[in-house]
């Protein structure tokens, strides 16, 4: 398995892990009555901003851990160079990711028009964002294995 494939698998699991843990923590605070996410939309903004910061820091830490473990296991310290094939794969995967995110947003808006509560759109953003990331990394794994 190539370095890029391993990195994408780590990205998928770290995305699921970070989003899952953060969502559980926020939901528990909501259940305890610390804030009401069905009414307080300003709080959603704060939650999203904190999530961005937490996610970036957690990913950097997980990436460093992955790189150390990979360097020990494969005895390759140098990162592979990014060439034209890597760039093309990233481009196509990002396109798939945008399609997924756009589709999720449109679906959420349609649901909103059909009577879904307003807070549902924030939940849809989180779910669609996570799905788009999985599609991005999953597409990269697919293109690396099957060709582009």
């Amino acid at each position, binding site marked *: 398995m*190539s370095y*890029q494939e391993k990195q994408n698998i780590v990205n998928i699991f770290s995305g699921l892990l970070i989003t899952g843990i953060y969502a559980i923590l926020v939901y528990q605070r909501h259940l305890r009555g610390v804030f009401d996410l069905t009414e307080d939309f300003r709080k959603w903004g704060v939650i999203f901003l904190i999530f961005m910061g937490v996610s970036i820091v957690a990913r950097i830490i997980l990436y460093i851990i992955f790189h150390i473990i990979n360097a020990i296991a494969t005895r390759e310290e140098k990162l*592979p*160079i990014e*060439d*034209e*094939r*890597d760039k093309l794969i990233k481009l196509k995967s990002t396109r798939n990711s945008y399609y997924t995110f756009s589709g999720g947003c449109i679906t959420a808006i349609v649901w909103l028009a059909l009577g879904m509560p307003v807070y549902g759109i924030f939940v849809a953003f989180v779910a669609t964002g996570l799905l788009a990331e999985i599609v991005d990394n999953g597409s990269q794994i697919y293109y*690396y294995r*099957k*060709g*582009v």
Partner: protein
Amino acid sequence: MVKSKIQNNIRKLRFNSGEMTQQQLADEVGVSRQTIVAIEKGNYSPSLELAFRISHVFNTPLEEVFTYNSETP
């Protein structure tokens, strides 16, 4: 599997160049070994620039390194 209509003789040319390894060719043309593997297998069609760089390494005309097969579905 995404098979390219562009076929190549890189494996044969490497063999004729004193069993040049995929890594050596990759280093010469400035790409990763995985990209050379993908090109040899027909899973990736290189850019025109990379195709020229590969042909220059073997000192061979481009059309002898890469051929276009329009009959491939």
